[in-house]
């Protein structure tokens, strides 16, 4: 299945900004994070189709996944 993945901020470095990517059915957000080797300590926000989700969310065909680093004041 195809999932549109958008990476925000430092996650783009050495990867991409936004891409359609092919994944097996039943894959979770955590699997995408692992596959892209995103640094865990910066992991902050996940949106699936514009709605906050978590790393256990199961993705389905055509989903739009946004992965963002943490934002925390300052």
């Amino acid at each position, binding site marked *: 299945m195809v999932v549109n993945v958008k990476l925000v901020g430092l996650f783009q470095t050495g990867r991409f900004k936004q891409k359609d990517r092919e994944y097996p059915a039943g894959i979770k957000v955590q699997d995408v994070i692992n596959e892209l080797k995103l640094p865990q300590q*910066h992991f902050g*926000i996940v949106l699936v189709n514009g709605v906050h989700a978590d790393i256990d969310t199961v993705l389905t065909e055509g989903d739009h996944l946004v992965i963002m*680093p943490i934002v925390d004041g300052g």
Partner: protein
Amino acid sequence: MKFQTTDPAANPTAILYKRCTIDLRSGDMSFADIPCRNLEDVLGGFGRSFQDLAEREIENAYCEENPLIVNTGLLTGSSVMTGMRTYFSGYSPIKGSKAGLPAAMWSTGSGRFGAKFKWTGLDELIFENRSEKPVYVVITETDAGPQVALKPAEHLFGLSTHDKIMALQKGYADAHFAVIGQAGENWQNNYMGAVALSTENQLKEHEDKSRFAGRGGMGSLMGYKNILALVAQSSDKFKPLSEAIKQVNLNVIKGGGSARIQPLSRGGGGGTWAAYDVLQEFHAVPVNNFRPQGNDIPEQLFRENVEKEYNIKSQACYRCGITCHNNISEKNADGSKGEFLAKFDYEPLNLFSTNIGIHDAGQAARLIQLGDNYGMDAISLGVTISYALSYNERHPEKTILNGATFGDYEKIRELIIQAGEGTLPEIGQGSMRLSQRLNETSYAYHVKGLEIAAYQPETNPGYIWAIAGGHMSMGTYGLLTREGKSDLESWVRGITEDKLHIVGFDMIGLCKFFDITKGIGTQMVVDCLKSELDLDVSTDDIRAAVRRAFLRGLALELRQGYTKAEFCLPAEVSENPNQNIKLPNITSREFIEKLEKRVWEIFEPELEGLFD
């Protein structure tokens, strides 16, 4: 401080702090070892100063009875990472109720002044009355204990914050400095004066790299008292690092707390600037006076775009491994670093760029630098200017001031200069007064008279209960954007339980980046207190003390005449909801009314008897 107990929660009076009180009118000064009243006093910062402020009934910030209290926290000057904070407290010239009474306020900054101050042996300095002539104050460590002297300061008058520090540095070795700029000197017309605190990098490189205690106009209060600078002169007194502190410091650097603040080159998130990328995903980066337009305009200030043309270097306060300062300089033709411009923290960056229609990093940096050198709070200044620009956009036929509009760099620059020099009270006195004068208050982005930080109010109704402005005294700014919470229960819990604990950092002497999500009621802090000071205190005791201190702040607001109706967000937020923001609407009138009811039901019973 003197410690005659290891149990500060049970025996606070067995812990004494050294206070010097100076009568600026007569020059008299007295020293005393004061027993702590409670754990808040022991922790220090605003936890202590607000109890003292509560003992005074002040009707006008610029009156002789309004003290300026300078103090530190229990871990200021310790080996614990970020232990650099100095606190300035008093009744604020800028933050006040509609009844006309000034609010109690504190402001804090890092740099190295706080540690040097603590190492002189003094814990608190209270300035009473005002000096007839400009003075600066020298606090020195001697064998007989701390000594304090008042010195004539005519030669410093009119200098910028940086130039004052450079001038003082010539006369005082082994010292650090807390100074005001021209804005604070022009306190009559400028209520947003900040206090600049010198950094090691500033003294070594002679570049204007101060840190600032900006909020609430404590620099203007200092100016009213005719104090242009404080000098703290002492030798360094870092204890050797214990295993426990080493472990804590390592946790702070490697743990989740500060990872996003670390430089990109060290695998970090690149500082608070990174908020731009994340908030833009929700179209929640403030644009043109807090009205995001749903377009990609904020992306021009993304770090990756700025880096192409400017040199960015991460620096830190002395010995801090968090390295949160993103210093931006011109880039020479060969790619090397050119002239230093300014620090790019998220707040000043946004408020002097996208939120005033400036999308050029160099111009934004120049404006930040200008405001810093005049010694003005970047948040109050940026937001008051954005209000004026918004007014002019709405009234092209009868503009105010110099007619500046969004993006007009030269005219905005002119406004900053005039405000800094005290010739433009319309800007210098803040957005609440300006909007009241113009009778258009709905789009003045302040809460309780203090301008809000660069997080859209639509994302943070917690601003309503922040006791010292913005998001840094109520840590709910990420509840919607980061955690996706839009239900009433989460917000009630956030405001009344977890997120108010952010203010604990403004007691103990540490930066919030030490552990911004958890506050100071943690095992890490317990370990630090044991290792550094041999104090046994539980996380529960710390949390209880922080909560009491927060509630005291709320009670003081009510005592200074705030009505509940004044605990509100800018009206535009609910009157004209911004459809461009891609987040659930949690600032509708209905939601806010329910939230207010629930929050006050919890807070109100706890406020009773706090000042008995």
